Protein backbone atom coordinates (compact mmCIF):
# COMPACT_ATOMS: atom_id res chain seq x y z
CA UNK A 1 0.00 0.00 0.00
CA UNK A 2 2.67 2.47 1.06
CA UNK A 3 4.64 2.09 -2.12
CA UNK A 4 1.64 2.56 -4.33
CA UNK A 5 0.78 5.75 -2.44
CA UNK A 6 4.30 7.02 -2.89
CA UNK A 7 4.07 6.27 -6.54
CA UNK A 8 0.80 8.14 -6.70
CA UNK A 9 2.25 11.23 -5.15
CA UNK A 10 5.22 11.03 -7.48
CA UNK A 11 2.79 10.92 -10.33
CA UNK A 12 1.04 13.99 -9.03
CA UNK A 13 4.30 15.85 -8.91
CA UNK A 14 5.25 15.06 -12.43
CA UNK A 15 1.71 15.82 -13.52
CA UNK A 16 2.27 19.38 -12.46
CA UNK A 17 1.79 21.81 -15.35
CA UNK A 18 4.76 21.82 -17.70
CA UNK A 19 6.91 20.19 -15.07
CA UNK A 20 6.74 23.44 -13.07
CA UNK A 21 7.16 22.78 -9.41
CA UNK A 22 5.12 24.83 -6.98
CA UNK A 23 7.61 25.94 -4.37
CA UNK A 24 4.90 27.26 -2.09
CA UNK A 25 3.41 23.83 -1.92
CA UNK A 26 6.81 22.35 -1.34
CA UNK A 27 7.46 24.58 1.65
CA UNK A 28 3.96 24.16 3.01
CA UNK A 29 4.39 20.41 2.88
CA UNK A 30 7.66 20.71 4.73
CA UNK A 31 5.96 22.84 7.38
CA UNK A 32 3.28 20.32 8.07
CA UNK A 33 5.93 17.69 8.74
CA UNK A 34 7.41 19.70 11.57
CA UNK A 35 5.62 19.52 14.86
CA UNK A 36 3.66 22.72 15.36
CA UNK A 37 5.24 24.86 18.05
CA UNK A 38 3.16 27.26 20.08
CA UNK A 39 4.55 30.64 18.93
CA UNK A 40 3.95 32.20 22.36
CA UNK A 41 6.53 29.83 23.84
CA UNK A 42 9.22 31.20 21.56
CA UNK A 43 8.09 34.81 21.68
CA UNK A 44 6.17 35.86 24.81
CA UNK A 45 4.89 38.92 22.95
CA UNK A 46 3.52 36.92 20.01
CA UNK A 47 0.13 38.33 19.11
CA UNK A 48 -2.15 37.19 16.36
CA UNK A 49 -4.17 40.16 15.11
CA UNK A 50 -5.34 41.89 11.97
CA UNK A 51 -5.62 45.55 11.04
CA UNK A 52 -8.96 46.04 9.34
CA UNK A 53 -10.55 48.93 7.49
CA UNK A 54 -14.02 50.15 8.44
CA UNK A 55 -15.48 48.34 5.43
CA UNK A 56 -13.87 45.07 6.46
CA UNK A 57 -15.21 45.42 10.01
CA UNK A 58 -18.67 46.22 8.67
CA UNK A 59 -18.50 43.05 6.62
CA UNK A 60 -17.34 41.08 9.65
CA UNK A 61 -20.19 42.41 11.80
CA UNK A 62 -22.71 41.81 9.05
CA UNK A 63 -21.57 38.21 8.70
CA UNK A 64 -22.05 37.71 12.44
CA UNK A 65 -25.50 39.30 12.24
CA UNK A 66 -26.51 37.24 9.22
CA UNK A 67 -25.41 33.94 10.71
CA UNK A 68 -27.32 34.65 13.94
CA UNK A 69 -30.38 35.82 12.07
CA UNK A 70 -30.34 32.57 10.05
CA UNK A 71 -29.81 30.37 13.07
CA UNK A 72 -32.53 31.90 15.21
CA UNK A 73 -34.80 32.84 12.29
CA UNK A 74 -35.16 36.45 13.38
CA UNK A 75 -34.72 39.66 11.38
CA UNK A 76 -31.15 40.94 10.96
CA UNK A 77 -32.15 44.15 12.72
CA UNK A 78 -33.25 42.25 15.83
CA UNK A 79 -30.19 40.03 15.62
CA UNK A 80 -28.07 43.18 15.76
CA UNK A 81 -29.78 44.47 18.91
CA UNK A 82 -29.46 41.02 20.53
CA UNK A 83 -25.78 40.74 19.65
CA UNK A 84 -25.03 44.26 20.83
CA UNK A 85 -26.74 43.56 24.16
CA UNK A 86 -24.49 40.49 24.65
CA UNK A 87 -21.21 42.15 23.57
CA UNK A 88 -21.35 40.41 20.20
CA UNK A 89 -21.02 36.96 21.72
CA UNK A 90 -23.02 34.79 19.29
CA UNK A 91 -22.85 31.67 21.45
CA UNK A 92 -24.10 33.53 24.49
CA UNK A 93 -27.04 34.95 22.49
CA UNK A 94 -27.96 31.52 21.08
CA UNK A 95 -27.66 29.89 24.50
CA UNK A 96 -29.89 32.49 26.18
CA UNK A 97 -32.36 32.59 23.31
CA UNK A 98 -32.79 28.82 23.22
CA UNK A 99 -33.24 28.76 26.98
CA UNK A 100 -35.84 31.51 27.16
CA UNK A 101 -36.53 33.52 24.01
CA UNK A 102 -39.07 35.86 25.62
CA UNK A 103 -36.81 36.77 28.53
CA UNK A 104 -33.87 37.30 26.17
CA UNK A 105 -35.88 39.72 24.04
CA UNK A 106 -36.97 41.60 27.15
CA UNK A 107 -33.39 41.65 28.47
CA UNK A 108 -32.14 43.08 25.19
CA UNK A 109 -34.87 45.74 25.41
CA UNK A 110 -36.42 44.53 22.17
CA UNK A 111 -39.69 43.67 23.91
CA UNK A 112 -41.30 45.49 26.86
CA UNK A 113 -41.17 43.77 30.29
CA UNK A 114 -44.92 43.11 30.14
CA UNK A 115 -46.90 42.50 26.94
CA UNK A 116 -48.57 45.68 25.64
CA UNK A 117 -52.30 46.21 25.58
CA UNK A 118 -53.65 45.65 22.12
CA UNK A 119 -54.48 48.87 20.34
CA UNK A 120 -58.07 49.38 19.27
CA UNK A 121 -58.60 51.91 16.53
CA UNK A 122 -62.07 53.41 16.63
CA UNK A 123 -61.50 55.83 13.79
CA UNK A 124 -59.18 56.29 10.85
CA UNK A 125 -57.89 59.50 12.43
CA UNK A 126 -55.72 59.78 15.50
CA UNK A 127 -54.12 62.58 17.53
CA UNK A 128 -50.40 62.11 18.20
CA UNK A 129 -49.80 62.55 21.92
CA UNK A 130 -46.51 64.35 21.32
CA UNK A 131 -47.41 66.96 18.70
CA UNK A 132 -51.22 66.95 19.36
CA UNK A 133 -51.84 66.85 15.60
CA UNK A 134 -54.68 64.72 14.24
CA UNK A 135 -53.61 62.63 11.27
CA UNK A 136 -54.61 59.59 9.28
CA UNK A 137 -53.86 56.32 11.03
CA UNK A 138 -51.36 55.25 8.35
CA UNK A 139 -49.03 58.03 9.52
CA UNK A 140 -48.55 56.31 12.88
CA UNK A 141 -45.84 53.87 13.91
CA UNK A 142 -44.85 51.97 17.03
CA UNK A 143 -42.25 49.58 18.40
CA UNK A 144 -43.01 46.26 20.12
CA UNK A 145 -44.32 48.23 23.11
CA UNK A 146 -47.25 49.54 21.02
CA UNK A 147 -46.72 53.18 22.01
CA UNK A 148 -47.88 54.93 18.87
CA UNK A 149 -46.61 58.26 17.64
CA UNK A 150 -46.76 59.98 14.29
CA UNK A 151 -44.01 59.65 11.73
CA UNK A 152 -42.86 63.24 12.04
CA UNK A 153 -42.44 62.98 15.79
CA UNK A 154 -40.39 59.80 15.46
CA UNK A 155 -38.17 61.56 12.90
CA UNK A 156 -37.59 64.62 15.11
CA UNK A 157 -37.04 62.40 18.16
CA UNK A 158 -34.32 60.47 16.29
CA UNK A 159 -32.75 63.67 14.97
CA UNK A 160 -32.49 65.15 18.47
CA UNK A 161 -31.11 61.95 19.96
CA UNK A 162 -28.55 61.47 17.17
CA UNK A 163 -27.41 65.10 17.42
CA UNK A 164 -26.55 64.27 21.06
CA UNK A 165 -24.43 61.33 19.89
CA UNK A 166 -26.92 58.66 20.92
CA UNK A 167 -27.38 55.72 18.53
CA UNK A 168 -27.78 52.18 19.89
CA UNK A 169 -29.43 53.54 23.04
CA UNK A 170 -32.30 55.45 21.40
CA UNK A 171 -35.51 54.32 23.05
CA UNK A 172 -39.25 54.72 22.57
CA UNK A 173 -40.70 58.18 23.23
CA UNK A 174 -43.24 57.07 25.82
CA UNK A 175 -42.64 57.91 29.47
CA UNK A 176 -40.56 55.25 31.29
CA UNK A 177 -40.57 53.00 28.22
CA UNK A 178 -37.17 51.35 27.74
CA UNK A 179 -37.80 49.54 24.46
CA UNK A 180 -34.96 50.33 22.03
CA UNK A 181 -35.48 51.54 18.49
CA UNK A 182 -33.68 49.05 16.21
CA UNK A 183 -31.54 50.25 13.33
CA UNK A 184 -34.05 49.59 10.54
CA UNK A 185 -36.81 51.44 12.40
CA UNK A 186 -34.58 54.49 12.87
CA UNK A 187 -33.30 54.43 9.29
CA UNK A 188 -36.85 54.09 7.93
CA UNK A 189 -37.74 57.38 9.62
CA UNK A 190 -34.63 59.12 8.35
CA UNK A 191 -34.81 58.01 4.72
CA UNK A 192 -35.05 61.60 3.47
CA UNK A 193 -32.37 63.02 5.79
CA UNK A 194 -29.02 62.03 4.32
CA UNK A 195 -26.64 63.87 6.65
CA UNK A 196 -28.32 62.80 9.91
CA UNK A 197 -28.60 59.29 8.54
CA UNK A 198 -24.87 59.18 7.90
CA UNK A 199 -24.21 60.54 11.37
CA UNK A 200 -26.38 57.80 12.85
CA UNK A 201 -24.60 55.09 10.90
CA UNK A 202 -21.24 56.48 12.01
CA UNK A 203 -22.26 56.55 15.70
CA UNK A 204 -23.89 53.16 15.66
CA UNK A 205 -20.80 51.62 14.04
CA UNK A 206 -18.62 53.16 16.75
CA UNK A 207 -20.93 51.75 19.43
CA UNK A 208 -20.72 48.29 17.88
CA UNK A 209 -16.92 48.35 17.70
CA UNK A 210 -16.60 49.65 21.26
CA UNK A 211 -18.92 46.93 22.58
CA UNK A 212 -17.12 44.18 20.64
CA UNK A 213 -14.36 42.70 22.81
CA UNK A 214 -12.36 41.51 19.81
CA UNK A 215 -12.26 44.91 18.10
CA UNK A 216 -10.30 47.99 19.06
CA UNK A 217 -10.06 51.36 17.31
CA UNK A 218 -6.46 52.32 16.60
CA UNK A 219 -5.69 55.12 19.08
CA UNK A 220 -3.50 56.92 16.52
CA UNK A 221 -4.67 60.44 15.64
CA UNK A 222 -7.15 60.49 12.73
CA UNK A 223 -6.54 56.80 12.06
CA UNK A 224 -9.57 54.78 10.98
CA UNK A 225 -8.00 51.35 11.33
CA UNK A 226 -9.65 48.81 13.62
CA UNK A 227 -7.58 46.01 15.16
CA UNK A 228 -9.17 42.59 15.37
CA UNK A 229 -7.95 39.78 17.57
CA UNK A 230 -9.67 36.86 19.24
CA UNK A 231 -7.02 36.97 21.95
CA UNK A 232 -8.27 39.70 24.30
CA UNK A 233 -5.04 40.36 26.14
CA UNK A 234 -2.62 43.15 26.97
CA UNK A 235 -0.53 42.42 23.89
CA UNK A 236 1.40 44.69 21.55
CA UNK A 237 -0.56 45.77 18.49
CA UNK A 238 1.08 47.80 15.72
CA UNK A 239 -1.21 49.68 13.36
CA UNK A 240 -0.23 48.93 9.78
CA UNK A 241 -1.43 52.34 8.64
CA UNK A 242 -0.19 54.92 11.17
CA UNK A 243 2.41 52.68 12.90
CA UNK A 244 1.00 53.48 16.35
CA UNK A 245 2.06 50.86 18.89
CA UNK A 246 -0.41 50.23 21.68
CA UNK A 247 -1.75 47.72 24.16
CA UNK A 248 -4.68 45.83 22.62
CA UNK A 249 -6.48 45.55 25.93
CA UNK A 250 -6.39 49.10 27.28
CA UNK A 251 -5.51 51.07 24.14
CA UNK A 252 -2.72 52.97 25.92
CA UNK A 253 0.98 52.89 25.04
CA UNK A 254 2.27 49.32 25.12
CA UNK A 255 3.53 48.56 28.62
CA UNK A 256 4.93 45.00 29.01
CA UNK A 257 5.87 43.59 31.49
CA UNK A 258 3.63 45.91 33.53
CA UNK A 259 -0.10 45.13 33.35
CA UNK A 260 -2.92 47.53 32.43
CA UNK A 261 -4.01 48.44 35.98
CA UNK A 262 -0.50 48.93 37.29
CA UNK A 263 0.62 51.14 34.41
CA UNK A 264 -2.47 53.28 34.87
CA UNK A 265 -1.67 53.64 38.57
CA UNK A 266 1.94 54.47 37.77
CA UNK A 267 1.14 57.06 35.13
CA UNK A 268 -1.39 58.75 37.44
CA UNK A 269 1.21 58.78 40.19
CA UNK A 270 3.82 60.23 37.85
CA UNK A 271 1.39 62.92 36.70
CA UNK A 272 0.79 63.87 40.35
CA UNK A 273 4.37 63.72 41.54
CA UNK A 274 6.37 64.58 38.46
CA UNK A 275 6.94 68.21 39.50
CA UNK A 276 8.95 67.12 42.53
CA UNK A 277 10.64 64.41 40.55
CA UNK A 278 11.56 66.78 37.75
CA UNK A 279 12.94 69.22 40.24
CA UNK A 280 15.12 66.60 41.86
CA UNK A 281 16.34 64.81 38.78
CA UNK A 282 18.21 67.52 36.93
CA UNK A 283 19.27 67.23 33.34
CA UNK A 284 22.95 67.52 34.10
CA UNK A 285 25.36 65.76 36.41
CA UNK A 286 28.94 66.36 37.45
CA UNK A 287 31.66 63.95 36.45
CA UNK A 288 32.37 61.86 39.58
CA UNK A 289 36.12 62.18 39.00
CA UNK A 290 36.91 65.67 37.75
CA UNK A 291 33.52 67.27 38.63
CA UNK A 292 33.08 68.99 35.30
CA UNK A 293 29.42 69.55 34.45
CA UNK A 294 28.12 67.05 31.90
CA UNK A 295 24.93 67.28 29.90
CA UNK A 296 23.62 63.98 28.64
CA UNK A 297 23.07 64.26 24.90
CA UNK A 298 22.98 60.59 23.91
CA UNK A 299 20.87 57.63 24.93
CA UNK A 300 23.65 55.51 26.30
CA UNK A 301 24.13 55.51 30.06
CA UNK A 302 27.77 54.52 29.71
CA UNK A 303 29.34 57.96 29.97
CA UNK A 304 32.86 58.94 29.14
CA UNK A 305 33.89 62.30 30.54
CA UNK A 306 34.91 64.64 27.77
CA UNK A 307 37.46 66.23 30.09
CA UNK A 308 39.19 63.42 32.01
CA UNK A 309 38.04 60.39 29.96
CA UNK A 310 36.68 58.73 33.08
CA UNK A 311 34.11 56.01 32.24
CA UNK A 312 31.12 56.03 34.54
CA UNK A 313 27.42 55.14 34.73
CA UNK A 314 24.99 58.02 34.33
CA UNK A 315 22.48 56.49 36.71
CA UNK A 316 24.59 55.60 39.72
CA UNK A 317 27.72 57.62 38.90
CA UNK A 318 29.76 54.50 39.70
CA UNK A 319 32.78 53.37 37.75
CA UNK A 320 31.65 51.76 34.50
CA UNK A 321 34.21 48.97 34.89
CA UNK A 322 32.16 47.48 37.72
CA UNK A 323 29.10 47.48 35.43
CA UNK A 324 30.57 45.67 32.50
CA UNK A 325 31.47 42.16 33.44
CA UNK A 326 30.64 41.98 37.12
CA UNK A 327 27.25 41.88 38.72
CA UNK A 328 25.33 44.92 37.57
CA UNK A 329 23.43 46.50 40.41
CA UNK A 330 22.53 49.96 39.25
CA UNK A 331 18.88 49.17 38.50
CA UNK A 332 18.18 47.65 41.89
CA UNK A 333 16.70 49.76 44.64
CA UNK A 334 18.11 48.95 48.05
CA UNK A 335 15.41 49.31 50.64
CA UNK A 336 16.31 50.42 54.13
CA UNK A 337 15.84 47.23 56.22
CA UNK A 338 15.08 49.16 59.44
CA UNK A 339 12.34 51.28 57.88
CA UNK A 340 9.60 49.92 60.17
CA UNK A 341 11.33 51.41 63.20
CA UNK A 342 11.81 54.84 61.68
CA UNK A 343 9.58 57.84 62.27
CA UNK A 344 6.61 58.68 60.04
CA UNK A 345 8.60 61.54 58.58
CA UNK A 346 11.53 59.29 57.72
CA UNK A 347 9.13 56.74 56.25
CA UNK A 348 7.62 59.41 54.00
CA UNK A 349 11.10 60.44 52.92
CA UNK A 350 11.97 56.82 52.27
CA UNK A 351 8.77 56.37 50.21
CA UNK A 352 9.65 59.41 48.14
CA UNK A 353 13.20 58.18 47.74
CA UNK A 354 11.97 54.81 46.55
CA UNK A 355 9.56 56.39 44.09
CA UNK A 356 12.23 58.73 42.79
CA UNK A 357 14.62 55.84 42.28
CA UNK A 358 12.15 54.16 39.93
CA UNK A 359 10.86 57.38 38.44
CA UNK A 360 14.35 58.64 37.54
CA UNK A 361 15.12 55.41 35.74
CA UNK A 362 11.76 55.36 34.00
CA UNK A 363 12.19 58.97 32.89
CA UNK A 364 15.83 58.48 31.99
CA UNK A 365 15.09 55.58 29.64
CA UNK A 366 12.27 57.52 28.09
CA UNK A 367 14.69 60.38 27.40
CA UNK A 368 17.31 57.94 26.13
CA UNK A 369 14.77 56.56 23.67
CA UNK A 370 14.25 60.04 22.27
CA UNK A 371 17.97 60.76 22.13
CA UNK A 372 18.60 57.46 20.37
CA UNK A 373 16.06 58.48 17.76
CA UNK A 374 18.31 61.45 17.05
CA UNK A 375 21.31 59.12 16.91
CA UNK A 376 19.48 57.10 14.31
CA UNK A 377 18.84 60.24 12.25
CA UNK A 378 22.53 61.15 12.36
CA UNK A 379 23.40 57.58 11.46
CA UNK A 380 21.10 57.79 8.46
CA UNK A 381 22.92 60.93 7.27
CA UNK A 382 26.35 59.39 7.70
CA UNK A 383 25.34 56.22 5.88
CA UNK A 384 23.86 58.31 3.11
CA UNK A 385 27.21 60.05 2.69
CA UNK A 386 29.05 56.74 2.70
CA UNK A 387 26.79 55.26 0.06
CA UNK A 388 27.11 58.41 -2.05
CA UNK A 389 30.90 58.26 -1.87
CA UNK A 390 30.89 54.61 -2.90
CA UNK A 391 31.58 53.03 0.48
CA UNK A 392 29.23 50.08 0.27
CA UNK A 393 25.56 49.95 -0.65
CA UNK A 394 22.41 50.63 1.30
CA UNK A 395 22.03 46.91 1.83
CA UNK A 396 25.51 46.72 3.35
CA UNK A 397 24.58 49.22 6.02
CA UNK A 398 21.07 47.95 6.66
CA UNK A 399 22.19 46.01 9.71
CA UNK A 400 22.85 49.29 11.53
CA UNK A 401 19.20 50.27 11.27
CA UNK A 402 18.18 46.85 12.43
CA UNK A 403 20.48 47.33 15.41
CA UNK A 404 19.06 50.78 16.19
CA UNK A 405 15.48 49.49 15.99
CA UNK A 406 16.28 46.56 18.23
CA UNK A 407 17.91 48.93 20.69
CA UNK A 408 14.73 51.02 20.79
CA UNK A 409 12.59 47.93 21.32
CA UNK A 410 14.80 46.69 24.17
CA UNK A 411 15.02 50.05 25.86
CA UNK A 412 11.26 50.47 25.61
CA UNK A 413 10.70 47.21 27.50
CA UNK A 414 13.37 48.22 29.99
CA UNK A 415 11.59 51.53 30.61
CA UNK A 416 8.39 49.66 31.45
CA UNK A 417 10.15 47.27 33.83
CA UNK A 418 10.49 50.14 36.35
CA UNK A 419 6.79 50.65 37.16
CA UNK A 420 6.54 46.84 37.35
CA UNK A 421 9.36 46.67 39.90
CA UNK A 422 8.02 49.65 41.86
CA UNK A 423 4.73 47.89 42.61
CA UNK A 424 6.29 44.48 43.18
CA UNK A 425 6.32 43.03 46.70
CA UNK A 426 9.76 42.41 48.15
CA UNK A 427 10.87 38.78 48.04
CA UNK A 428 12.73 36.24 45.95
CA UNK A 429 10.58 36.93 42.88
CA UNK A 430 11.42 40.60 42.97
CA UNK A 431 15.09 39.73 43.45
CA UNK A 432 14.95 37.52 40.36
CA UNK A 433 13.19 40.26 38.45
CA UNK A 434 15.70 42.90 39.41
CA UNK A 435 18.55 40.57 38.59
CA UNK A 436 17.15 40.02 35.09
CA UNK A 437 16.38 43.71 34.77
CA UNK A 438 19.99 44.54 35.66
CA UNK A 439 21.24 42.02 33.10
CA UNK A 440 19.01 43.52 30.45
CA UNK A 441 20.05 47.05 31.35
CA UNK A 442 23.74 46.17 31.13
CA UNK A 443 23.35 44.58 27.71
CA UNK A 444 21.26 47.47 26.43
CA UNK A 445 23.89 49.98 27.46
CA UNK A 446 26.54 47.87 25.74
CA UNK A 447 24.42 47.79 22.64
CA UNK A 448 23.76 51.53 22.78
CA UNK A 449 27.48 52.20 23.15
CA UNK A 450 28.20 50.07 20.11
CA UNK A 451 25.41 51.58 18.01
CA UNK A 452 26.65 55.10 18.73
CA UNK A 453 30.09 54.00 17.54
CA UNK A 454 28.68 51.88 14.78
CA UNK A 455 31.20 52.49 12.03
CA UNK A 456 34.15 51.63 14.21
CA UNK A 457 32.46 48.58 15.73
CA UNK A 458 32.91 45.22 14.11
CA UNK A 459 29.69 44.06 12.50
CA UNK A 460 29.89 40.61 14.01
CA UNK A 461 30.48 42.11 17.42
CA UNK A 462 27.44 44.35 17.05
CA UNK A 463 25.20 41.55 15.83
CA UNK A 464 26.34 39.41 18.71
CA UNK A 465 25.42 42.18 21.13
CA UNK A 466 22.01 42.53 19.49
CA UNK A 467 21.36 38.86 19.96
CA UNK A 468 22.35 38.98 23.63
CA UNK A 469 20.19 42.02 24.38
CA UNK A 470 17.13 40.57 22.68
CA UNK A 471 17.61 37.24 24.44
CA UNK A 472 17.73 39.01 27.80
CA UNK A 473 14.57 40.91 26.92
CA UNK A 474 12.71 37.77 25.85
CA UNK A 475 13.86 35.88 28.94
CA UNK A 476 12.57 38.60 31.23
CA UNK A 477 9.22 38.73 29.41
CA UNK A 478 8.90 34.94 29.36
CA UNK A 479 9.31 34.86 33.13
CA UNK A 480 7.29 37.93 34.06
CA UNK A 481 4.87 38.90 31.29
CA UNK A 482 1.58 37.59 32.59
CA UNK A 483 -1.29 38.55 30.27
Amino acid at each position, binding site marked *: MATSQDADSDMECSDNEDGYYDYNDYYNDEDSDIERIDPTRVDPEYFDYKCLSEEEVERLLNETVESLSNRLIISPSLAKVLLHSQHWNTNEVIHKYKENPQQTLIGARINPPSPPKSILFTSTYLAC*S*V*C*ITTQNIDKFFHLSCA*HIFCRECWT*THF*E*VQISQGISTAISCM*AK*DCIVLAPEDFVLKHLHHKTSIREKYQHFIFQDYVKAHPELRFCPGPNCSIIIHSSEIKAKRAVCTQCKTIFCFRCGCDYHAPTDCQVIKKWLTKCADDSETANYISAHTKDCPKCHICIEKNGGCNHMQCYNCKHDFCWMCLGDWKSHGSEYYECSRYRENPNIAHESVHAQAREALKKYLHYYERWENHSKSLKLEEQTLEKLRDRINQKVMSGLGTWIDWQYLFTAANLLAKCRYTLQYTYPFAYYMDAGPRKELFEYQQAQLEAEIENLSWKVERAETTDRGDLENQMDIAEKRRTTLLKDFLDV
Partner: protein
Amino acid sequence: MAALPRRIIKETQRLMQEPVPGISAVPDESNARYFHVIVTGPEDSPFEGGLFKLELFLPEDYPMSAPKVRFITKIYHPNIDRLGRICLDILKEKWSPALQIRTVLLSIQALLSAPNPDDPLANDVAELWKENESEAIRNAKEWTRRYAMDN
Protein backbone atom coordinates in the same frame (compact mmCIF):
# COMPACT_ATOMS: atom_id res chain seq x y z
CA MET B 1 -39.16 83.28 14.91
CA ALA B 2 -40.90 80.15 13.70
CA ALA B 3 -44.56 79.66 14.46
CA LEU B 4 -45.34 78.20 17.85
CA PRO B 5 -45.93 74.43 17.61
CA ARG B 6 -49.46 73.27 18.23
CA ARG B 7 -48.24 71.20 21.14
CA ILE B 8 -47.00 74.29 23.03
CA ILE B 9 -50.22 76.22 22.31
CA LYS B 10 -52.33 73.31 23.59
CA GLU B 11 -50.26 72.89 26.73
CA THR B 12 -50.37 76.62 27.49
CA GLN B 13 -54.14 76.73 27.01
CA ARG B 14 -54.64 73.80 29.33
CA LEU B 15 -52.32 75.26 31.98
CA MET B 16 -54.47 78.41 31.97
CA GLN B 17 -57.86 76.65 31.88
CA GLU B 18 -57.12 73.84 34.35
CA PRO B 19 -54.22 75.04 36.50
CA VAL B 20 -52.43 72.50 38.70
CA PRO B 21 -53.20 73.08 42.39
CA GLY B 22 -50.35 74.96 44.06
CA ILE B 23 -48.64 75.80 40.76
CA SER B 24 -49.03 78.75 38.44
CA ALA B 25 -47.25 78.96 35.09
CA VAL B 26 -47.72 82.05 32.93
CA PRO B 27 -46.04 82.55 29.56
CA ASP B 28 -43.98 85.72 29.12
CA GLU B 29 -45.65 88.46 27.11
CA SER B 30 -42.79 88.71 24.65
CA ASN B 31 -41.78 85.05 24.49
CA ALA B 32 -44.32 82.23 24.49
CA ARG B 33 -41.58 79.67 25.23
CA TYR B 34 -40.62 81.36 28.50
CA PHE B 35 -42.83 80.75 31.55
CA HIS B 36 -42.94 82.55 34.88
CA VAL B 37 -43.67 79.84 37.41
CA ILE B 38 -44.68 79.99 41.07
CA VAL B 39 -44.76 76.81 43.14
CA THR B 40 -46.18 76.83 46.67
CA GLY B 41 -44.22 74.90 49.26
CA PRO B 42 -46.00 71.56 49.93
CA GLU B 43 -47.78 71.00 53.23
CA ASP B 44 -45.83 69.10 55.91
CA SER B 45 -42.55 70.04 54.28
CA PRO B 46 -39.97 72.57 55.52
CA PHE B 47 -40.98 74.70 52.53
CA GLU B 48 -44.63 75.00 53.65
CA GLY B 49 -45.96 78.53 53.41
CA GLY B 50 -43.30 79.64 50.92
CA LEU B 51 -43.88 80.85 47.38
CA PHE B 52 -41.02 79.78 45.11
CA LYS B 53 -40.40 81.54 41.84
CA LEU B 54 -39.01 79.50 38.94
CA GLU B 55 -38.30 80.11 35.30
CA LEU B 56 -39.12 77.52 32.65
CA PHE B 57 -37.95 77.64 29.06
CA LEU B 58 -39.01 75.40 26.21
CA PRO B 59 -36.02 74.87 23.89
CA GLU B 60 -36.28 74.85 20.12
CA ASP B 61 -36.64 71.06 19.92
CA TYR B 62 -39.21 70.77 22.73
CA PRO B 63 -40.84 68.29 23.34
CA MET B 64 -38.03 66.11 21.98
CA SER B 65 -35.73 67.83 24.50
CA ALA B 66 -36.64 68.57 28.11
CA PRO B 67 -37.66 72.05 29.24
CA LYS B 68 -35.02 74.04 31.10
CA VAL B 69 -36.17 74.86 34.62
CA ARG B 70 -34.45 76.82 37.38
CA PHE B 71 -35.40 78.16 40.83
CA ILE B 72 -35.12 81.93 41.08
CA THR B 73 -36.04 82.06 44.77
CA LYS B 74 -33.22 80.88 47.03
CA ILE B 75 -34.02 77.49 48.52
CA TYR B 76 -32.24 75.15 50.97
CA HIS B 77 -32.61 71.75 49.33
CA PRO B 78 -30.12 68.91 48.67
CA ASN B 79 -31.11 68.55 45.01
CA ILE B 80 -31.14 72.27 44.16
CA ASP B 81 -27.90 74.23 44.00
CA ARG B 82 -27.22 77.87 44.83
CA LEU B 83 -27.86 78.88 41.22
CA GLY B 84 -31.28 77.25 41.40
CA ARG B 85 -30.38 74.36 39.10
CA ILE B 86 -32.41 71.24 39.79
CA CYS B 87 -31.19 67.65 39.87
CA LEU B 88 -34.17 65.72 38.59
CA ASP B 89 -33.97 62.64 36.37
CA ILE B 90 -36.91 63.57 34.12
CA LEU B 91 -35.17 66.85 33.25
CA LYS B 92 -32.17 64.84 32.07
CA GLU B 93 -31.81 61.22 31.02
CA LYS B 94 -35.36 60.18 31.88
CA TRP B 95 -36.99 62.89 29.76
CA SER B 96 -39.68 61.59 27.43
CA PRO B 97 -41.51 63.63 24.78
CA ALA B 98 -44.69 62.27 26.32
CA LEU B 99 -44.05 64.33 29.47
CA GLN B 100 -45.44 67.85 29.71
CA ILE B 101 -44.86 71.17 31.44
CA ARG B 102 -47.45 70.23 34.05
CA THR B 103 -45.88 66.83 34.80
CA VAL B 104 -42.47 68.48 35.16
CA LEU B 105 -43.78 71.06 37.60
CA LEU B 106 -45.62 68.39 39.59
CA SER B 107 -42.39 66.40 39.83
CA ILE B 108 -40.57 69.50 41.10
CA GLN B 109 -43.26 70.04 43.71
CA ALA B 110 -42.91 66.40 44.73
CA LEU B 111 -39.14 66.86 45.03
CA LEU B 112 -39.80 69.58 47.64
CA SER B 113 -41.84 67.08 49.66
CA ALA B 114 -39.27 64.32 49.30
CA PRO B 115 -35.66 65.55 49.12
CA ASN B 116 -33.17 62.93 47.99
CA PRO B 117 -29.81 63.56 49.72
CA ASP B 118 -28.30 60.41 48.18
CA ASP B 119 -28.34 62.00 44.74
CA PRO B 120 -27.23 65.50 45.62
CA LEU B 121 -26.47 68.60 43.63
CA ALA B 122 -25.71 70.99 46.49
CA ASN B 123 -23.13 68.91 48.34
CA ASP B 124 -22.92 70.75 51.68
CA VAL B 125 -26.71 70.77 52.01
CA ALA B 126 -26.91 67.04 51.24
CA GLU B 127 -24.15 66.28 53.77
CA LEU B 128 -26.05 68.03 56.55
CA TRP B 129 -29.33 66.49 55.44
CA LYS B 130 -27.81 63.04 55.92
CA GLU B 131 -25.84 63.74 59.10
CA ASN B 132 -28.22 65.98 60.98
CA GLU B 133 -31.63 66.01 59.38
CA SER B 134 -33.31 68.13 62.05
CA GLU B 135 -30.73 70.91 61.67
CA ALA B 136 -31.05 70.74 57.87
CA ILE B 137 -34.82 71.03 58.14
CA ARG B 138 -34.41 73.99 60.49
CA ASN B 139 -32.18 75.66 57.89
CA ALA B 140 -34.69 74.93 55.13
CA LYS B 141 -37.50 76.48 57.19
CA GLU B 142 -35.35 79.50 57.96
CA TRP B 143 -34.50 80.01 54.26
CA THR B 144 -38.17 79.58 53.34
CA ARG B 145 -39.16 82.25 55.86
CA ARG B 146 -36.38 84.60 54.78
CA TYR B 147 -36.51 84.27 50.99
CA ALA B 148 -39.90 82.78 50.03
CA MET B 149 -42.44 84.53 52.24
CA ASP B 150 -42.26 88.30 52.26
CA ASN B 151 -43.47 88.86 48.72
